[in-house]
């Protein structure tokens, strides 16, 4: 589908439906003001004009044939863009990676080269596994997107994805000791142990007192539940008071929930 037609169709659909055409204009303006640059360097209007002119004009922009990611191509994308303004399309849709510099040593080929193995990725530094490397004459500029990560030369890329990265922001160079570093904090460790013991005591009390009421004393379920209410419903009333008291007399450092 051509992106130009797509946005027209989407605009008509929204104009007839739940959104007005003004929303569509707002969307266009948001995309333009969001600073999203087309891979060819043009803004949205230039892109749409180039797409309307035909494939011969936009062939230089397309990384591989007709596989250019559909910019504003479908209607629901426009609708979602209305709900989430200023969301860069490049964040939703990782652009194709075109390498001009490091892959200049590649032989010029007509068909794009698919680099999918780690060994092939190591031969071309700067490209990760699964990155499609296009010949230089099909790329007008080098793109950088969220899918492009610098490859650590000391680790296999596969190993890097296994070792690091279960928390955001971790690089593959961290060892396991850095990951469990927070457990070494005495407050954190002791607080977790206290949480363990305290919740254990609470749940065991609730569980076994229920058994005692039901089986030992033969209460009906309703009466057993009512007799358990002092244990379970008291925090509902005490918690606000206890929180206020804790804020007043507690240690001040414990109150720094966001500025620690």
């Amino acid at each position, binding site marked *: 589908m051509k992106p130009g037609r797509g946005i027209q169709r989407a605009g008509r659909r929204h104009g007839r439906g739940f959104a007005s055409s003004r929303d569509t204009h707002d969307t266009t303006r948001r995309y333009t003001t969001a600073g999203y640059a087309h891979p060819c360097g043009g803004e949205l209007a230039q892109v749409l004009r180039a797409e309307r002119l035909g494939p011969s004009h936009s062939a230089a922009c397309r990384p591989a044939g007709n596989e250019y990611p559909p910019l504003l191509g479908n209607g629901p994308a426009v609708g979602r863009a209305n709900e989430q303004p200023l969301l860069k399309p490049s964040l939703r849709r990782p652009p194709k990676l075109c390498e001009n510099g490091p892959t200049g040593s590649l032989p010029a080929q007509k068909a794009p080269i698919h680099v999918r193995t780690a060994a092939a990725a190591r031969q071309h530094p700067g490209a990760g596994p699964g990155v499609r490397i296009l010949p230089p004459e099909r790329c007008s500029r080098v793109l950088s997107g969220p899918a492009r990560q610098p490859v650590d030369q000391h680790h296999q890329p596969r190993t890097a994805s296994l070792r690091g990265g279960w*928390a955001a*922001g971790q690089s593959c160079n*961290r060892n396991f000791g*850095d990951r469990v*570093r*927070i*457990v*070494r*904090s*005495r*407050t*954190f460790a*002791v*607080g*977790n*142990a*206290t*949480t*363990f*013991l*305290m*919740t*254990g*005591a*609470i*749940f*065991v*009390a609730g*569980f*076994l*007192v229920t*058994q*005692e*009421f039901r*089986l*030992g*004393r*033969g209460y009906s379920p309703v009466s057993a539940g009512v*007799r*358990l209410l*002092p*244990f*379970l*419903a*008291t*925090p509902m009333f*005490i*918690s606000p008071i*206890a*929180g206020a008291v*804790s804020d007043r007399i*507690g240690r001040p*450092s*414990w*109150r*720094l*929930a*966001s*500025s*620690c």
Partner: protein
Amino acid sequence: MATGLFMLTAGLAWAASRGSLSTNWVELDISLLIAGADVSMALLTLPTAVLNAVAPRELGKASGIKYMMQRLGPAVAIAAASALFAANGHLGTPASVTDGFKPAPAACAGFALLAAISALAITPPRTQHAPARDEGESPARPEPATADAVD
């Protein structure tokens, strides 16, 4: 927090000492009322203390570990208390159920006592150093204030 946990211990110990068939349920409920009131005291301050011990960028990890402990505690404690129940009684008659129930609040009180003792070991984080160091440190070691200084 430690006060609340010690009072929780007292409430559960009271329930353990009076947990027999001759005891009126009102007395048992009063002890449970005290325990419930103290639970709310500890239940509020404990996550605050735990989550304040870590750097802001590790709050998600810390919260996950804390929640894991929060689920793991009941699992282990209920298993232990069920074993204690099965060792002292069985579900056949009300008297046997009560026989099995008697040591269970004692086990709860033991858990709460251990929790209170461990809560005494909680030290406040060095928050007067934390913001300045947090900005200056490298991402690899973001919080040496609580990690090293209290050891």
